[in-house]
């Protein structure tokens, strides 16, 4: 029971608060100020409506033809709606509803016009007051801009340019160092001997019978390389090269005799080797390709 009573009191209280928030003053008749101007009545508590809250001003009798509300633009400090307009003799009795968008005193005439387009200069001042609920003291203000400090190197662009210069200089230095090192390596490396230069001493020693064991392999492969070049088989697959060389009328017998000498268990044909190798004894690099038509 006590709970129900409390709930009823709460509902009634909320309804009362809503009624006061709308600022309805429907029972008040036209009210005039000290100079005879029309003024919007204040709320029962005596304070004018605040920004954004609706307020009513009822039963205002204004002479002349019927008035209508002007559509308010976005910058207007006030919005006005004519709730009702009733004939009152030669005049009209109006009920206004308005919303203040800016605090201060405003004249409702700025939002009224005659329906027939005639002048409203004969209307009295319809002054309403809108109060602000925000206090002017202690309002939040934006931070005051502080003066920026320049970087030590003189700014981001300067820093970028300096970085690019250092990077390019480093790259150039790296390239120069690598080039010098490569040149030094090449200078210290033994020169790669040409096929003719490699073949000549091997053939000489083979003809004299002084070829060392490891040189025999070099001699055989060098002669294969020579004939591969002579017959234009550089691009042919190595497995096929030997098959073709063995079938060649000049290279075939040479390689076959070499194989018999170097690979047979009884090393057959050693006596024929000097005569076989004689044509390869003093080959120059330009003679490696052989006489025209060797292919």
């Amino acid at each position, binding site marked *: 029971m006590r709970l129900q009573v409390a709930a009823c009191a709460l509902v009634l209280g909320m309804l009362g608060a809503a009624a006061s928030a709308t600022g309805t003053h429907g029972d008040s008749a036209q009210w005039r100020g000290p100079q005879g101007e029309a003024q919007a009545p204040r709320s029962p508590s005596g304070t004018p409506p605040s920004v954004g809250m609706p307020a009513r001003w009822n039963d205002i009798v204004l002479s002349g033809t019927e008035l209508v509300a002007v559509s308010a633009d976005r910058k207007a400090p006030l919005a006005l709606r004519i709730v009702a307009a009733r004939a009152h003799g030669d005049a009209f009795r109006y009920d206004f509803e308005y919303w203040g968008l800016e605090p201060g005193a405003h004249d409702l005439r700025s939002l009224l016009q005659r329906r027939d387009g005639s002048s409203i200069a004969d209307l009295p001042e319809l002054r309403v007051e809108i109060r602000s609920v925000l206090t002017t003291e202690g309002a939040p203000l934006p931070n005051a801009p502080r003066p920026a400090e320049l970087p030590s190197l003189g700014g981001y662009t300067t820093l970028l340019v300096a970085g690019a210069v250092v990077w390019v200089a480093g790259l150039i230095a790296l390239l120069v160092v690598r080039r010098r090192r490569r040149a030094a390596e090449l200078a210290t490396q033994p020169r*790669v001997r040409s096929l003719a230069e490699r073949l000549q001493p091997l053939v000489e020693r083979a003809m004299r019978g002084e070829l060392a064991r490891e040189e025999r392999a070099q001699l055989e492969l060098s002669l*294969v390389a020579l004939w591969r070049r002579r017959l234009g088989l550089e691009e042919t697959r190595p497995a096929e090269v*030997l098959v073709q060389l063995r079938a060649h009328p000049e290279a075939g017998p040479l390689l076959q005799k070499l194989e018999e000498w170097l*690979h047979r268990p009884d090393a057959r044909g050693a006596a024929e080797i000097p005569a076989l190798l004689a044509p390869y004894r003093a080959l120059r690099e330009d003679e490696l390709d052989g006489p025209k038509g060797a292919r």
Partner: protein
Amino acid sequence: MTTTSAPVASSDLARTEEYIRRVRERVGTVVVGQDVVVERLLIALFSGGHLLLQGVPGLAKTLLVSTLSKSIDLGFARVQFTIDLLPSDILGSEVLDQRTNEFRVRKGPTFTNLLLADEINRAAPKVQGALLEAMQERKVTIGTETFRLPAPFLVIATQNPVEQAGTFELPEAQLDRFMLVHRLDYPSADEEREVLRRNAALGIQRQDKGAIVQTEFDVLDSRPVGSVSEIVAAMEAVNSIHVSDTFIDHVVEVVHRTRAHPDVELGCSPRAGISLIKASRARALMHGRSYVIPEDLYALAEDALLHRMRLKYGSIAEGKTGRQVLDEVLRSMGGEARA
């Protein structure tokens, strides 16, 4: 156990040549134009190595191995490798004998002379590892017992190099167990014509009350063209083929050049050189020579060395292939060694 290294007699050489000719002829009646593959199979058989055949489906890899096994009178088993295969499926396992209430060993298909491991890269690595261990050690442990595999023991594995989804690529260490990896090419136009002609001549085979369309497998002659003793003789003959110091120098040079090539990250191992010499000896025998020559090296280099080389990522990204690099290595033979 005895080892043979005496020089091969010319009569033995002639007998072995005749045997090889008969095997080739028999295989040639069924398989068209795969002379090189047959040669590689016999090289692997005679030199005690294992062979991996890489080729797209439809190149008669399985038919070739089946034909060879029937021709040479050896035990043959085929295992189709799949993802769910277990090591016990190929090696064997212990099963409970309910009559005696004791475990007894059930030997797997590995206990044969010629094992065809079809599509080896489809099996999980533990199965590949189990098989490769058996290949290397030639013995298998089941439970607590160790069994020696039959002699000769040859694994011929196949692998499809194109279709890689759902496969486990064999790592270099395991590829190294294969003495040779041969990459099959498509047959020539003439050979392909002959394949189609032979296939069109196949008939219908009546079976019970029905009939089936014959395949090449149905017309295989199951009578062998030689005996195991001839294979043993061939193996002995291979073992007595002369390898000169010069040839060994060639092999050392090519192996070292694979290690020094700028595009190669991992060069050939010493096992590559051993395989190359073994295979060259078998090839020399098959070509009627009692000694090896550089032609054997050049002919077998790709099969013996290529799968033992790993290129650098940068070189692969530049589009270089292992075959190109190996060709460069072989072309540079006899030239100045790289620094």
